[in-house]
């Protein structure tokens, strides 16, 4: 029996935020079998579910382990649906270069921001952790990024963030990118001091800050 589109979308959404990957896989396959729109299913099912998980994270009902499992379920669904996207679905996306600055290997926070940016539909270029500072600049130029996101958990490596901004200035391309920073020891005051465009203290906040910076830039 064929189910309504809305019912399947609800399974996709619930499957993601209730951490039920099997439900997501079953529902995603159902979307494909019924020829329902894959783009719609990703956005209004999977990503809606991830956003709900983000809300629970914000409310301190979910923590890092829960968010990681939700994201696994989301990615499992995207994997099934992606081959069925139509050409017209590929819109101009926000491009992001993200990574943990050189000398630091703590990447949980960065991974959470990446997950929420994927969920927000951004095109994310993840450089990983312990990233040489010049690589941020090179990658941003290569992909024509809108945002550069720098993360660190350590006081000893936070000055590397200022170095990246200096490198952009030296090349005369500082204004081509919005630079957002975050991580344990980082604060709005530190962001102001080094001339970063934005600061966020958690993954959901990073999306809000990004959107508001890009909206301002477009206005």
């Amino acid at each position, binding site marked *: 029996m064929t189910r309504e589109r809305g019912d399947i979308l609800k399974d996709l959404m619930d499957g993601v935020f209730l*951490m039920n990957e099997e439900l997501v896989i079953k529902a995603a396959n159902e979307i494909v079998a019924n020829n329902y729109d894959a783009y719609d299913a990703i956005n209004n099912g999977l990503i809606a579910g991830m956003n709900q998980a983000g809300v629970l994270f914000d409310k301190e009902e979910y*923590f*890092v*382990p829960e968010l*990681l499992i939700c994201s696994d379920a989301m990615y499992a669904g995207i994997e099934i649906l992606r081959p069925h996207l139509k050409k017209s679905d590929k819109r101009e996306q926000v491009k992001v270069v993200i990574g943990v600055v050189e*000398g630091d*290997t703590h990447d*949980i926070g960065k991974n959470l921001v990446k997950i929420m940016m994927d969920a927000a539909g951004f095109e994310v270029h993840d450089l990983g952790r312990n990233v040489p500072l010049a690589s941020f600049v090179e990658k941003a130029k290569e992909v024509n990024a809108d945002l550069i996101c720098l993360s660190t958990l350590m*006081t*000893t490596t936070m000055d590397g963030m200022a170095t990246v901004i200096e490198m952009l200035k030296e090349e005369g391309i500082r204004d081509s990118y919005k630079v957002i920073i975050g991580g344990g020891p980082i604060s709005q005051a530190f962001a102001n001091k080094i001339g970063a465009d934005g600061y966020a203290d958690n993954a959901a906040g990073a999306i809000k800050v990004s959107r508001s910076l890009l909206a301002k830039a477009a206005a």
Partner: protein
Amino acid sequence: MNEKTRLLKALRKEPVDRAPFICPGGMMNMTVTDLMDAAESAWPDAHLDPEKMARLTLAANRLAGVENTGVPFCMTIEAEAMGSQVYLGTRGTEPRVTEYAIGSFAEIGRLRPIDPGAGRAKVCVEAIRILKREAPGTPVIANLSGPISLASSLIDPIVFYKGLIADKGNVHNLMKIVNENLIRFGDALAEAGADVICIADPSATGEILGKKVFADFALPYINALTNYFREKHGLPSIVHICGDVRPLGGLLGEIAAEAVSVDSMVSIKTLREFAPAKVSMGNVSTYLLEKGEPADVARHGERCVRAGVGILAPACGLGPKTSIANIKSLSRAGRESGVAARS
């Protein structure tokens, strides 16, 4: 009252002339590059040689006014001994894990037991023997990686954190092996003469795990360790909890260790409310210690003392560029305001 007597009495909540000022070592780093120059013993060599390790931590005691010594200077000894690959870092950066010992929980059987008679574990044991000989009146702190931090240094943290929800049985299996090995290493450090155990578990913050997972997977293993060292060796313990402790709430009071140390974002007042039976320890911002002036540091130290801190300490590990002058300033503030507060 010598440094060792004062710290041990403070940990037992017995009367002391003032709160001791300590930097435990391990994650709670006490070594800075100026001390490396003065002691002619620098990272990364000091991680590999017991004599250099002892000399460097003694320099923190003698030149910067830190009222203890402590080993090691990193959180990688145990993970390396159990099979992870470690890059020893540089003069200004700490060692870190570059490759995990196992790729999945199915490979738990491949983990090696720590051999305290080999490698860098042995370096720590021998360094403690030297410290006992050179500075018998100064307490030696043996720093152990926290169980969650060690577990997530043996297997990719992403795999580990997901396991906390989706593969609980295997996570407990791994945690049991982790604790057995921390006890094996801790036994050797205690037998060499360590006076206090300090456990820091930065991967087990309330913000990362949430209260329930912390209660199920962090607290029981941390408490098993500190109870063991008290019963077996008569040693008191300090447990440092990174990040904001508010998500943990009353769980903080269930920590079995004698002392609880917190990050700078938590006030000593909050700590004392959450864990009234514990010796409170902390919590001068290490950012301020690295970037601020001696007078700022002293003011923050005095504030902790006025708030009734049981042990004065930095809130986290010192950044390697922190000046000796700032550490000394905190030490002096502890001595002066500490005595004033109790007289």
